[in-house]
């Protein structure tokens, strides 16, 4: 009985990989970078709360005691060497505690640990995405390319999220280092997937790379993060599949697209 209850309880908890209504916190991490970002957020938040409580205590206390009858004579202290030194040194130590994890994350995001296994190009157009998987071309013409359009509001099937689903998802293998090359065909765009901790701007004439290691299988939703005109809400859906299924999924996708 208790097992049934526990199973029922835990099956309803699924990882949050898309925006939820009234969501306050981050989506669940799918990559080490996102996990690092969330951990950094927790580190900073601790110091934030400390400072907030300290400052608000002082403010509230000052307001509370500002009373002509109860405290008619204010303090006349204007100097105090010891406290001035403490209140200068101590707040400059706090940003050091914040900076250490922050810089560690920043530089580790750029580190090349291993060479990527796959390169996927995400090309932004107004207003859809096209993806190119060109690692296996034997000539300049043939390439695994497909377009990815957001499913319009009137068309989604039951269970699909409004304005978040696309017709062709980007299929990537999980637990594999991949390099995303992001570039636009027309105007600036931005390729963002919050649960993977990725936001890479696509600037015309420039090709930006970002490195992702998706640690768990699943479907991750993101949105273009550079507004470029009307009907702009177009989305990015990354589907991470086990490595052994990757080859067949990608070739199926290509067959479906060309048909």
């Amino acid at each position, binding site marked *: 009985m208790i097992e049934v209850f526990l199973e029922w309880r835990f099956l309803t908890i699924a990882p949050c990989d898309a925006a939820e209504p009234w969501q306050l916190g981050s989506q669940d991490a799918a990559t080490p970078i996102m996990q690092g970002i969330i951990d950094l957020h927790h580190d900073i938040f601790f110091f934030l709360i400390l400072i907030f409580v300290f400052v608000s205590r002082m403010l509230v206390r000052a307001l509370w005691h500002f009373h002509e009858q109860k405290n008619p004579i204010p303090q006349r202290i204007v100097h105090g060497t010891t406290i001035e030194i403490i209140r200068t040194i101590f707040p400059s130590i706090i940003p050091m505690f914040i900076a250490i994890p922050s810089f560690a994350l920043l530089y580790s995001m*750029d580190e*090349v640990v291993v*060479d*990527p*296994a*796959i*390169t996927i*190009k995400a*090309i932004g157009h107004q207003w859809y995405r096209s993806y*190119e998987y*060109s*690692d*296996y*071309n034997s000539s*300049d013409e043939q*390439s695994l*390319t497909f377009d990815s359009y957001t499913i319009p509001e009137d068309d989604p099937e039951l269970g699909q999220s409004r304005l978040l689903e696309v017709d062709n998802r980007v299929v990537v*293998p999980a637990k*594999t280092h991949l*390099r995303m*090359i992001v*570039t636009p*065909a027309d105007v600036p765009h931005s390729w963002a997937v919050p649960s993977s901790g990725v936001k*890479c701007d696509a600037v015309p*004439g*420039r*090709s*930006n*790379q*970002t490195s992702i290691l998706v640690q768990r299988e699943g479907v991750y939703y993101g949105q273009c993060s550079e507004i470029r005109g009307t009907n702009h809400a177009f989305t990015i859906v990354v589907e991470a599949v086990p*490595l*052994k299924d*990757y*080859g*067949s999924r990608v*070739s199926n996708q290509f067959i479906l697209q060309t048909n």
Partner: protein
Amino acid sequence: MAEIELKTAPADFCFPSANQTRHCFTRYIEYHKCLKAKGEDAADCQKFARYYRSLCPLEWIEKWNEQKESGTFPAPL
């Protein structure tokens, strides 16, 4: 489906940051220089060809190929 070996253009430390525009351009030029040095059918040059095809968007490759044919390519090949 047979297991496909996953490999792609390696990370080049000459281009360590996010901007890979120059990396893609350099691989394209390297391929054509290799072809010029070793002849049209050299198998060694295919490595560079794979690298630039992985890194460069198709649009750019098509544009550069056209420029090469019309003699307006903006770099010595």
